């Protein structure tokens, strides 16, 4: 005789109101990725530059004769630029399959038949990538500020450069948003994550190669706006109150970056649908 009725029973418990499903998607995605050793190794490796910078700060604080190593606003901007490599790798490895795999498995119809809209689905997927990318950009950069305070035993540097907190947040946010939306848009175009990864790498590398070629041909850097990376660097300089490094107006770089964000949103709006209509 069965001790538990294994038949179908009606559910009488609580239900969440629509609007929280993005958190379910995000949490499930983060949890499944954290279960992979390769992801953990990648994340650990992405913190190596932080350790190097922490040693640099320690030396500058404790040995006055190497004041050359003393941190400035530029140190934090350079640190965020160093992290570009890890942003690139994490974006491809984690971001490429996010929508492509769902499209391959026809999961979009399942997701969107639940009480969640397309924007919520994208927000959930975006949150997964956001979490990992902020972990390799914003978190170590802010931690460096904390390390500086801890090693020097005073908040003088931070108080003198208080703008660094919003600057780090803004530049990290911009990098992460651009990388996340671009890879998600590309991911929504294909059912192959490998192809999506190659496409993303192509966009980043080809745009920068084109800029370098134009730079060599013209002898100036007015064509920096064609490069995704150069645009971010240019905008980053302004955010960190440093002189812009290229001849392109920073506003143009900002507009191109915003344009890329807008294009990604348009692609997502058109591609993330439960029903694919081919006319």
């Amino acid at each position, binding site marked *: 005789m069965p001790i538990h009725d294994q038949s179908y029973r009606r559910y009488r418990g609580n239900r*969440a109101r629509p609007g929280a499903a993005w958190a379910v998607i995000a949490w499930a995605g983060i949890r499944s990725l954290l279960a992979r050793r390769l992801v953990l190794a990648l994340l650990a490796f992405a913190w190596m530059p932080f350790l190097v910078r922490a040693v640099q700060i320690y030396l500058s604080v404790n040995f006055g004769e190497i004041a050359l190593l003393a941190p400035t606003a530029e140190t934090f901007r350079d640190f965020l630029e160093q992290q570009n490599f890890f942003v690139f790798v994490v974006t491809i490895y984690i971001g490429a399959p996010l929508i492509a795999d769902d499209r391959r498995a026809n999961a979009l119809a399942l997701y969107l038949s639940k009480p969640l809209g397309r924007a919520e689905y994208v927000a959930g997927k975006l949150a997964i990538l956001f979490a990992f990318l902020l972990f390799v950009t914003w978190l170590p950069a802010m931690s460096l500020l904390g390390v500086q305070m801890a090693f020097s035993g005073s908040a003088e540097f931070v108080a003198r450069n208080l703008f660094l907190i919003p600057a780090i947040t803004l530049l990290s946010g911009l990098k992460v948003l651009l990388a996340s939306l671009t890879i998600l848009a590309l991911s929504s175009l294909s059912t192959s994550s490998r192809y999506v990864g190659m496409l993303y790498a192509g966009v980043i590398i080809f745009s920068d190669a084109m800029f370098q070629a134009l730079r060599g041909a013209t002898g100036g850097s007015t064509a920096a706006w064609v490069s995704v990376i150069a645009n971010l660097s240019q905008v980053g300089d302004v955010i960190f109150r440093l002189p812009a490094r290229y001849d392109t107006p920073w506003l143009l770089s900002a507009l191109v970056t915003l344009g890329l964000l807008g294009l990604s949103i348009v692609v997502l709006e058109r591609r993330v649908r439960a029903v694919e209509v081919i006319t």
Partner: protein
Amino acid sequence: MSTPSAVARLDRVTVSYGTNAALCEVDAVFESGAVGLLGPNGAGKSTMLKALLGLVVPDRGQMRVLDLDVAREPLKIRARLGYMPETDSHIPGMNAVSFVAYCGQLAGLPSTDAMRRAHEVLHYVGLGEARYRNLETYSTGMKQRIKLAQALVHDPDLLFLDEPTNGMDPAGRDHMLALIRDLAERKSVNLILSSHLLPDVEQACDHVVVMDRGTVVANGPIAELKGPSGRLYELRVKGDPETFLRALREAGMECPDSEDDTLRVFVPEPLGPRDLFQLAERQGVQVRHLKPSLSTLEDVFARAVGEE
């Protein structure tokens, strides 16, 4: 205004994909209980279900599901709906219990409840032993059952089942239809079963909506639609059946087939059963059994779509 027993209603709904109209001015009412949505491939059945889910926006017309407006409150509707898509669908990299629990959470269940319900529904659909296996290793029949499980996990008031027996072997198909029947009859789950297979609908449903080329061609209780024709009779006689059959044919009646000792006789208007008896008496044949023959759902379908 929906009648209380109607779980879904479409009023003059038109859905087009580009220049192709998938649904044309469709009016339909789905009563509570098990309703079959029957039609050949390309009739617009899946489009209708997707429109009712709010996944496809109609060009014209209004739809209500569970007394809620589909255009205004699609999320509230989907919270009370379970959808089993026609295509092979899953979320990659998950085992069955994680997948079903995840679907429960997406539908608003707390994580512990979702996990408990996932185990329950997996047992219910017959996947209890395979619930820790990765979905990618499942057979076609198992994939159909896991799709039913994810549609059931949040205990919907209305289920949309799009071709639930596709690709299943006869035993699996019977099991799936038995589950569907059980859900409708014993668990009080309203459901719409979309299929191009007449026996599936006939076995699992009480009502049927018949579609063809984007329009509804018949709609109502299966028993009523099949109805006693009043003109086709089954009869058994004592005496010489050959002579009697000849006499029937001479009188303008048709005898399409006979099975063992049972004759099926089509009696054209204005003739009736009285004429059968009179003819039998004249031929010296005794009528031992006479009853109006019921048409099958296949007859209803053929009549509705205008097939011979």
